């Protein structure tokens, strides 16, 4: 399966045919091919012998009703008291099956249990011990703890699915006549959440939000009313909505999504407002870059993407003006340009509905990303001050640390492996556990690289996988974050690869390029550094080391 498609096993104790249909037909990426296990036989469908597994699904959704999984919970729903231990035993048994199945997949998604629609429980006392809702919270918490221990097992919060269905989330007729446990709005929400989860797992969440200023980040036109006249915060519903929108964006920035500005304004006027307005939540340092001028916004977005060295497909453009949206959509079709509500009180809701910033886990680098780009801005400013590239590289005091992969940093390594598109030799996509398992195989080594210079730390930004086959050491992975590209970290890693290759007993190092739509920069690099390629295969005689750039301090 390529990165844009998945084969998903659907296991449920109720008729989930509508979910399968929506999932197959949904136009959002990724494409999902559905393998439906016959409903009602959840436990057998999770065992590797079940026929459904012969179709080699790479992910699964296991959606159950709590009363079908736990006999103790079903008893509780009938009004009888049950021991908590019995509930726990039922969940433990089910969780063990899920955990085992998840190890055969890239991801197993489990919607958390919801209180059965026709069960009222104790009403006001239902969240006390003995209540149905209390028992369900307890069971869900146990399931979540199990998912925490299994890297490929993900619990999905399903409580709010179908919230817009206005009482139609459960339809007794569908249940009694078709054994369909939820109404269509619930399944439609489930499809959006499943797709968002798969995109996050594929490392295809959006990385940059390009924002307009006037009537988007604040109410009013700053060039006309001045920063004091803007509607932002304060006792004004429009101002409050804009401030909340900024808070929602700030929350995204704090987990690694970059923010940038594309605004038609005088730059000094706009920046003064950002720096000075007391109710601004986002300040200058919260933006990785900006283009504030009277030129074309599509050109601004393209320039920002180039400056930040990320792909157009990683960008969301938000602007209150339908004309600007149409312009960017037409000029840059890879950029996600959502329709945007005219009413600012709907902005936060519209941002949340995009579901395109999801992430599997948070790393230290994620939370510091905007800061890293601010450092990069200062670094570029210093580049402008020195006369030659080599002089500039010398001035960076670049340090590259190589560390053998371990469980301590396998999460971030897997994230980098799955997110990086451009400087990625083979674009292998592996989950954290798969990566650790691969690296532990005979004749294999997997290394991570941390990069720092006098401006600050770029963090874990490089990966190298090596596998010895006879006298040849093959480069299984060569990955470098775009944040450190162009500083000859690439050459330092190749130097290290030849060093390790020799120590592994190899006579030659071979890097076989696997083309994707995005990784031509990697081909260009290898073509430049390896003088005699054999097609897309690049070899190096390990009798000598690949030269280490003189300005790089390499530490192991």
């Amino acid at each position: 399966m390529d990165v844009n498609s998945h084969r998903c096993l659907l296991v449920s104790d109720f008729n989930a045919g509508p979910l399968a249909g929506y999932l197959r037909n949904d136009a959002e990426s990724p494409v999902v091919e559905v393998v439906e296990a016959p409903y009602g036989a959840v436990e057998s469908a999770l065992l590797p012998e079940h026929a459904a597994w012969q179709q080699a699904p790479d992910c699964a959704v296991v959606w159950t009703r709590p009363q079908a999984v736990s006999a103790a919970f079903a008893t509780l729903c009938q009004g009888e008291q049950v021991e908590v231990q019995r509930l726990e035993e039922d969940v433990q048994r089910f969780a063990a099956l899920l955990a085992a199945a998840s190890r055969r997949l890239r991801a197993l998604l489990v919607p958390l249990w919801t209180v059965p629609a026709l069960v009222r429980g104790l009403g006001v006392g239902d969240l006390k011990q003995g209540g149905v809702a209390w028992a369900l919270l307890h069971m869900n918490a146990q399931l979540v703890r199990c998912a925490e221990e299994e890297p490929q097992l993900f619990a999905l919060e399903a409580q709010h699915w179908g919230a817009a269905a206005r009482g139609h989330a459960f339809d007794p007729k569908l249940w009694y006549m078709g054994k369909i446990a939820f109404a269509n709005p619930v399944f439609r929400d489930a499809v959006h959440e499943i797709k968002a989860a798969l995109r996050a797992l594929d490392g295809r969440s959006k990385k940059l939000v390009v924002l307009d200023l006037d009537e988007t980040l604040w109410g009013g036109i700053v060039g006309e009313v001045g920063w004091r006249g803007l509607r932002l915060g304060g006792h004004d519903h429009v101002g409050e909505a804009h401030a909340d929108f900024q808070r929602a964006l700030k929350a995204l920035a704090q987990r690694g999504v970059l923010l940038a500005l594309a605004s038609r304004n005088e730059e000094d006027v706009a920046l003064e407002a950002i720096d000075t307005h007391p109710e601004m939540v986002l300040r200058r340092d919260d933006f990785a870059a900006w283009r504030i001028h009277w030129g074309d916004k599509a050109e601004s977005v393209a320039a920002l993407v180039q400056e930040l060295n990320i792909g157009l497909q990683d960008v969301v453009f938000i602007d209150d003006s339908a004309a600007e949206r149409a312009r960017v959509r037409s000029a840059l079709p890879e950029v996600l340009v959502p329709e945007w509500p005219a009413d600012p009180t709907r902005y936060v809701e519209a941002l949340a509905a995009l579901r395109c910033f999801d992430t599997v886990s948070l790393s230290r680098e994620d939370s510091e990303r905007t800061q890293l780009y601010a450092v990069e801005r200062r670094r570029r400013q210093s580049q402008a001050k020195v006369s030659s590239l080599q002089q500039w590289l010398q001035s960076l005091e670049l340090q590259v640390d190589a560390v053998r992969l371990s469980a301590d940093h396998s999460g971030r390594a897997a994230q980098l492996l799955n997110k990086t598109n451009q400087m990625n030799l083979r674009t292998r996509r592996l989950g954290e556990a798969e990566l650790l398992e691969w690296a532990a195989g005979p004749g294999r080594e997997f290394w991570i690289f941390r990069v720092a210079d006098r401006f600050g730390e770029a963090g874990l930004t490089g990966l190298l996988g090596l596998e010895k086959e006879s006298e040849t050491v093959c480069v299984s992975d060569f990955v470098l974050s775009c944040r450190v590209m162009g500083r000859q970290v690439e050459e330092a890693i190749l130097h290290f690869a030849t060093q390790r290759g020799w120590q592994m007993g190899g006579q030659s190092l071979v890097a076989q390029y696997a083309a994707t739509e995005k990784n031509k920069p990697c081909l260009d690099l290898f073509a430049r550094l390896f003088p005699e390629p054999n097609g897309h295969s690049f070899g190096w005689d390990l009798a000598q080391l690949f030269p280490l750039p003189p300005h790089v301090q390499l530490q192991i």
Partner: protein
Amino acid sequence: MDKAETAARIVSEAIGELNLQRGADEQLGLQAMAALFGAGPLDSLGLVQLIAELENRIEDANGRRVNLADDEILGEDAGPFASVGALMAYVAEIL
């Protein structure tokens, strides 16, 4: 909007919703002559879903809950679910 127009909208939307779940070669037609249940492509599970979609939309339109799964309506043959046109006429009648 008169009852016939409302019924046409309700039936079209309900069929459209079902089509979102169906394969390209299983799409239900929207023309009055298009067959649904019985001689048409709708199986019994599809019929259940169509009934649920229609009941919800009728309730949204006039605030009244109706039961379209009544034995008399389903009857021996496909009844009002035989074709799109028959269904639109029936929904207009009960609106």
